[in-house]
């Protein structure tokens, strides 16, 4: 019988296995799950940005219908619970360790941002819990709000935390200050640029939710939660907050509807429901309302940066000086201290050979929602800074924007390339991606399109961004030396069942990335089994040995590499079994596409023959090899991976209204080896949508009293399909040299490379108005104010001179 087996391995655009359940409404998300006897939690949140809590009266609320319990900080403290831990410790100038104030599960003594949890009501229904929460009387004495970093750093500003005087978390530096000063001393020109990377609210489609349960018979706690990394939550919550050992704590992250970083972190609500469920011996569920998401999901970005670039007379970069203020918000979220430092300042070389770099970061506490990693995490901030700065420099030097980049690119023959800011890039070809994008975007034809737009009364501009990023997070030893409190390896357990189907247990987590398909393709390719025979299991600490989860474009580069390593072990064992069955020497057994063969003969055994023999070991070398066919591998990456590329954006501005329309967007990215081109393109398109959103409309605004002005979709602008062009996305590949798949990662590149391309295009469109910079987001009001020189423009930070 001839059977045509469709190509399902590496490089095939296989349709996503998970989409049927998602598109038909059969996904199982945390809020879909209910347990018998379940109670509901409602969190009472602070209406103040900064206030002393003088007293909390819960008596009336406790008597309301359906109320099972009300807890405040007093109960949490009496139970001996710990604070929410931070996963990273940054050591600043002079060896000074960062200030790490207590982050209580429920606000204790003070509230420090609007939305800070103050009490929790647990009741028979969510409505009853909410009714009772409204009856809780909290006496507050308002304290001065610290809505901005400037307010928090002002002399005499009140301290948000007693143990963080001056509201400074740390003052950190990287690079060689003396060498950088020397480079500036011999510069032909110094270009200066200041910018604010606008604060963003992640807004995953699925709001956060958590369901806690407790089995009094076994003493096991279960937390079902909207997490990108259930094992990390088990570690942080179990070891530091609840003090429950791992074997009595199961954390499940089922289908999760988007994370973008905001679901990496351990949040108070997870600890509350897990703890309360054990106390009440009943399951407890909490699901955020969208309004709560705005006030309690970690925000992203919010860096204020000054940069200076020293150039020689030919536009060659000599040195770069950067000073950043990074907003941490009210408390340190899990990854927060790493974002402006090790995930951002280490990228200051970009794709350029700048020989001397000095970066400084001051991290600041403010009375705002905590800020942490959000799609790209630190790399979008640095990329935006560099790619705007290079455009400003080109203009000041009178150089073409492509030419100045080309003069400074790290060339393909210079890899591995050691930057002056710690990282060593392994591979890349920035000229190739620039060329790919420039051709696809018809860069040469732009001036004609600009003229045609002008005839229609519209201002057309084009912007380029050539970037790289560091992901595939991360080499454990390296990040440990930089302050990470955990390893960042990944784990794969691969179980070949007796009849040859395969279950893969991965410590990564899929919340939109398509892992169930991409990873199955890897297994299909390496073990030669049909895709339908491979199941990817993730998101349950009771099934998977361990794992660090999904963020930093790490799942394939680290988690996929662990799978390859585990499959290598499967094949090695299979060869021994095959050698026994075929009475040949192990050295003579070859494995290819699911078949073990005695080299040079037609004697073969399939993987299924081997797995059956392994589980029914009648004819089996039982004295030498254990039965069964299952292997586990831990893979620790040797380096970060360095995707990069070129994004080209074309905009048209309506000068009458200030509206900016993205009319074309071209991306040529090097993400290493591509496993599923369709999924990669989808990931890149999604990232581009977020990057364009940041550049044009997304903006988080607090007023002087610390109230979040953009606390709903009425005021927080999210990009929609109608705001986006049809993207032209392609890849130009160089392989990662240090992982077995040659993959680099594609989850964040879209959001990293695109914002400066958009703003460079906006500035280009406004070139006749003498505009040198437009701060993000380039809203209609802002553009109109610039064009017409009207009030509103002064609220924009000064343009670079």
């Amino acid at each position, binding site marked *: 019988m001839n059977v045509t087996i469709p190509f399902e391995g590496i490089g095939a655009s296989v349709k996503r296995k998970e989409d049927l359940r998602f598109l038909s409404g059969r996904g199982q998300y945390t809020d879909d799950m209910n347990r018998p006897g379940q109670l509901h939690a409602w969190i009472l949140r602070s209406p103040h940005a900064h206030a002393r809590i003088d007293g909390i009266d819960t008596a009336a609320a406790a008597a309301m219908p359906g109320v099972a319990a009300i807890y405040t900080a007093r109960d949490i403290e009496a139970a001996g619970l710990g604070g929410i831990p931070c996963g990273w410790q940054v050591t600043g100038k002079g060896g000074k360790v960062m200030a790490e104030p207590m982050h209580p599960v429920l606000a204790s003594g003070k509230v420090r941002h609007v939305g800070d949890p103050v009490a929790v009501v647990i009741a028979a229904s969510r409505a009853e819990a909410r009714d009772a929460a409204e009856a809780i009387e909290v006496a507050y004495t308002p304290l001065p709000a610290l809505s901005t970093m400037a307010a928090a750093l002002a002399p005499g500003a009140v301290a948000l935390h007693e143990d963080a005087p001056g509201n400074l978390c740390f003052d950190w530096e990287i690079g060689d200050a003396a060498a950088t000063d020397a480079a500036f001393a011999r510069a032909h020109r110094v270009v200066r640029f200041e910018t604010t990377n606008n604060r963003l609210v992640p807004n995953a489609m699925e709001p956060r939710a958590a369901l806690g349960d407790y089995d009094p018979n076994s003493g096991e706690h279960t937390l079902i939660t909207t997490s990108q990394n259930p094992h990390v939550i088990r570690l942080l919550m179990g070891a530091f907050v609840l003090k429950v050992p791992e074997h009595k704590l199961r954390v499940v992250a089922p289908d999760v509807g988007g994370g973008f970083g905001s679901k990496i972190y351990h949040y108070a609500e997870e600890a509350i429901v897990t703890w309360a469920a054990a106390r009440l011996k009943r399951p407890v569920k909490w699901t955020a309302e969208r309004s709560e998401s705005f006030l309690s999901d970690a925000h992203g970005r919010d860096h204020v940066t000054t940069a200076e670039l020293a150039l020689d007379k030919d536009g060659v970069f000599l040195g770069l000086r950067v000073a950043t203020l990074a907003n941490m918000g009210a408390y340190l979220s899990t990854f927060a201290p790493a974002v402006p430092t090790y995930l951002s300042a280490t990228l200051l070389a970009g794709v350029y050979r700048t020989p001397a770099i000095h970066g400084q970061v001051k991290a600041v506490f403010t009375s705002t929602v905590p800020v942490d990693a959000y799609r790209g995490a630190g790399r979008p901030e640095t990329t935006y800074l560099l790619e705007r700065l290079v455009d400003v420099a080109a203009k000041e030097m009178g150089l073409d924007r492509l030419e100045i980049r080309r003069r400074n690119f790290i060339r393909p023959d210079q890899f591995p390339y050691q930057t002056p800011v710690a990282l060593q890039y392994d591979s890349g070809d920035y000229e190739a991606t620039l060329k790919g994008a420039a051709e696809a975007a018809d860069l040469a034809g732009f001036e004609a399109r600009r003229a045609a737009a002008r005839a229609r009364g519209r201002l057309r501009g084009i912007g380029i961004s050539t970037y790289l990023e560091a992901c595939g997070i991360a080499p454990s030893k390296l990040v440990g030396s930089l302050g990470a409190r955990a390893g960042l390896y990944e784990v794969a357990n691969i179980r070949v069942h007796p009849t040859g189907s395969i279950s893969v247990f991965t410590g990564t987590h899929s919340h939109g990335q398509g892992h169930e398909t991409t990873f199955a393709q890897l297994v299909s390719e390496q073990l030669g089994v049909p895709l339908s025979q491979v199941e990817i299991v993730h998101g349950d600490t009771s099934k998977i040995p361990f794992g660090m989860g999904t963020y930093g474009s790490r799942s394939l580069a680290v988690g996929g590499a662990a799978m390859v390593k585990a499959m290598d072990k499967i094949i090695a064992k299979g060869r021994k079994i095959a050698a026994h069955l075929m009475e040949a020497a192990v050295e003579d057994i070859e494995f290819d596409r699911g078949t073990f063969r005695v080299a040079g003969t037609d004697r073969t055994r399939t993987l299924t023959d081997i797995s059956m023999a392994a589980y029914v070991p009648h004819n089996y070398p039982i004295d030498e090899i254990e039965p069964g066919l299952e292997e586990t591998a831990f893979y620790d990456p040797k380096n970060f991976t360095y995707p990069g590329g070129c994004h080209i954006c074309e905009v048209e501005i309506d000068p009458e209204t200030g509206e900016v329309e993205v009319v074309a967007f071209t991306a040529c990215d090097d993400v290493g080896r591509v496993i599923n081109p369709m999924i990669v393109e989808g990931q890149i398109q999604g990232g581009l949508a977020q990057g364009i959103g940041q550049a044009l409309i997304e903006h988080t605004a607090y007023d002087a009293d610390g109230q979040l002005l953009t606390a709903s979709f009425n*005021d927080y602008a999210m990009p929609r399909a109608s705001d986006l062009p049809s993207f032209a996305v392609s890849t130009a590949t160089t392989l990662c040299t240090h992982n077995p798949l040659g993959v680099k990662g594609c989850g964040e590149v879209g959001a990293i490379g695109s914002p400066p391309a958009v703003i460079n295009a906006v500035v280009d469109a406004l070139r006749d108005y003498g505009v040198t910079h437009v701060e993000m987001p380039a809203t209609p*009001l802002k553009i109109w104010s610039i064009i017409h020189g*009207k009030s509103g423009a002064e609220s924009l930070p000064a343009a670079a001179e």
Partner: protein
Amino acid sequence: MYDFAYHKPSSIADAVKLLSEDPDAKPISGGMTLLPALKHRLNRPTALIDLSAIAELRGVKQEGGALVIGAMTKHVEVATNPLVLGAIPALAKMAASIGDTQVRNRGTLGGSLANNDPAADYPAAALALGASFITDRRSIPADDFFQGMFTTALEPGELLIAVSFPIPEKAGYAKLRNPASRYAMAGVFVAKGGQGVRVAVNGAGPCVFRQPEMEAALAANWSPEAVAGIHQSPDDLNSDIHGSAEYRAHLVTVMAKRAVAAA
């Protein structure tokens, strides 16, 4: 949301009776504004009177020189109705621009007008077209209907039944959407008909209003150029993080030009 009683009458008379019996009851049509307010606990009616089962509140008919549209007629129905498309295409086009597909399939003409959100679209159309508001007890001219932000001439318990739109000679609408909410940051509806030239502005101020200078200019010369030089005063216009009063004032002129061009 808080608890409330729920009634679903099948006649206008029953609905009016229910409303008259309970001053804290609220009628609900598409619920595009009321439901979110209830979910946010910003509104606490004792009862909701669901108007969706009252057949006589729906539909479009021509009566003489006017289109009479039932209050419960959905935006999508106005946008696609052949009578509207033939007689007042600007109204159909405006309805097609409201919110998104989901909103247009739930939201109703009467709900939007009775709510009188300053940034809603229908108030501009009704005011510019010189519509009459037919209630369970009287007919109210558009110039008297819109009284302020979220405030209309409707008395407590008074139910909007239908709106009669005189068929204009020409009409057009243009708006700039707020980047976040996608409501109108500023919109202008222009119409020329039996009541002369009327220009209504939504989104820019706390309530829809007429722009007399533009009306005079267009009466003399119906062309975009006629309004291009007329500046709306920013005094009393809305100002927020998305648009200053000055910006909105500027947009009124731009949208007026575009509305005339589209008419």
